[in-house]
């Protein structure tokens, strides 16, 4: 296989990954690492580098649309970014000392966890009692627009959310993914933030978190131009296409199918990790 065919095939795969990722809200990065390692025999470190770059691209591209809707809580995002960027820098350092098979196993576990989060039915109760002193000090409480007008919400368990975010950042730096599922979990379940606000604020943070570890990865040679070319352009193109097709009608079914595909990929990653095939 020549570089030309190799690049074209990866581009098509990344296009599909970006398309499905944007339709289901799971993000395209998830499929990139298994696709490159399992299908194309790429070393997992190059795959992590390419995935990280794709994550920055899709996050920045999508944030442009979200920010305009006024749902993103910018103060909350900035506050939690202290945790995610610290975690990401740590994660990038740990990555060098972690055996590749261990990284593959952790990646498999995170895949299963993310699929589970996306399949889980979420019920939400918007919290409006102003209990947390930290949330007040850091001005984290906010409002968001709905068809019925602005709704106010408050934030709880700021410390718990902060540390979970540090963990999400660590995984992002270690695995080159956005770890959006963990970020949404921290905000939904721990800090009790409305779903709409948490998804957009999470996306807002993903790009910054990934950028924090990208410098370290670049100098270590993880970010290869020949691989980033089809991955970044493909995922970005796919995400753009996906946002055009975004109709609510069939996404839940699609999301279920995609979640099961991800679980299958995760098992393959785990198997290969445990049998030391990386």
């Amino acid at each position, binding site marked *: *296989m020549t570089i030309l065919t190799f690049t074209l095939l990866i581009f098509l795969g990344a296009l599909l990954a970006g398309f499905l990722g944007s339709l289901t809200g799971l993000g395209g990065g998830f499929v990139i690492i298994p696709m490159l390692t399992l299908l194309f025999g790429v070393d997992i470190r190059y795959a992590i580098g390419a995935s990280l770059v794709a994550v920055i691209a899709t996050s*920045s591209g999508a*944030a442009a649309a979200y920010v305009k809707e*006024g749902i993103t809580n910018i103060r909350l995002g900035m506050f939690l970014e202290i945790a995610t960027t610290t975690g990401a820098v740590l994660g990038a350092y740990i990555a060098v000392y972690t055996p590749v098979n261990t990284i593959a196993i952790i990646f498999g576990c995170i895949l299963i966890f993310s699929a589970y989060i996306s399949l889980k039915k979420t019920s939400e109760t918007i919290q409006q009692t102003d209990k947390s002193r930290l949330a007040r000090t850091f001005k984290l409480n906010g409002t968001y627009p709905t068809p019925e007008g602005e709704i106010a919400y408050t934030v709880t368990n700021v410390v718990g959310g902060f540390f979970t975010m540090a963990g999400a950042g660590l995984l992002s730096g270690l695995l080159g993914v956005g770890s959006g599922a963990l970020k949404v979990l921290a905000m939904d379940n721990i800090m009790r933030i409305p779903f709409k606000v948490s998804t957009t604020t999470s996306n807002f943070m993903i790009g910054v978190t990934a950028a924090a*570890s990208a410098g370290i990865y670049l100098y270590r040679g993880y970010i*290869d131009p020949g691989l980033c*070319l089809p991955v970044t352009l493909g995922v970005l193109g796919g995400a753009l296409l996906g946002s055009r097709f975004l109709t609510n009608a069939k996404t839940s079914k699609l999301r279920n199918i995609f979640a099961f595909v991800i679980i299958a990929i995760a098992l393959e990653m785990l198997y290969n990790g445990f049998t030391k095939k990386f």
Partner: protein
Amino acid sequence: MRKILQDDDLEYAMGNLLRLGVIISSAIVAIGGIIYLYKHGMHLPEYATFIGNKSMFNSVSKIITGLKEWKGQAIIQLGILVLIFTPIARITFSFIGFLIEKDLLYMLLTLIVLAIITFSLLAGTNIV
């Protein structure tokens, strides 16, 4: 007081800044990609073994050297650098927003985030 950052034109500008960064970097990556594929399209890909920091374009100075020789890979890496700087530019932009609002606490928090990212970008250089 907290309304200002939520509904203002600043939000709009921030969204456009991110979009612009993505468009510019994709264009640079695409141009570099065409040159790279034209020159190396018929070679064989080698990604099975990781060579780490012996790689050709893993620092700003190596990328600049490559750019002077019109190397396709160096142009792609330049596009990726632009992409990495897009969220960083957004944070800098937020700082200006908090400055306009005279929100000292958040000006400080924004500087901390910037410091962490700068540390990552500079710490990498010592490893090479």
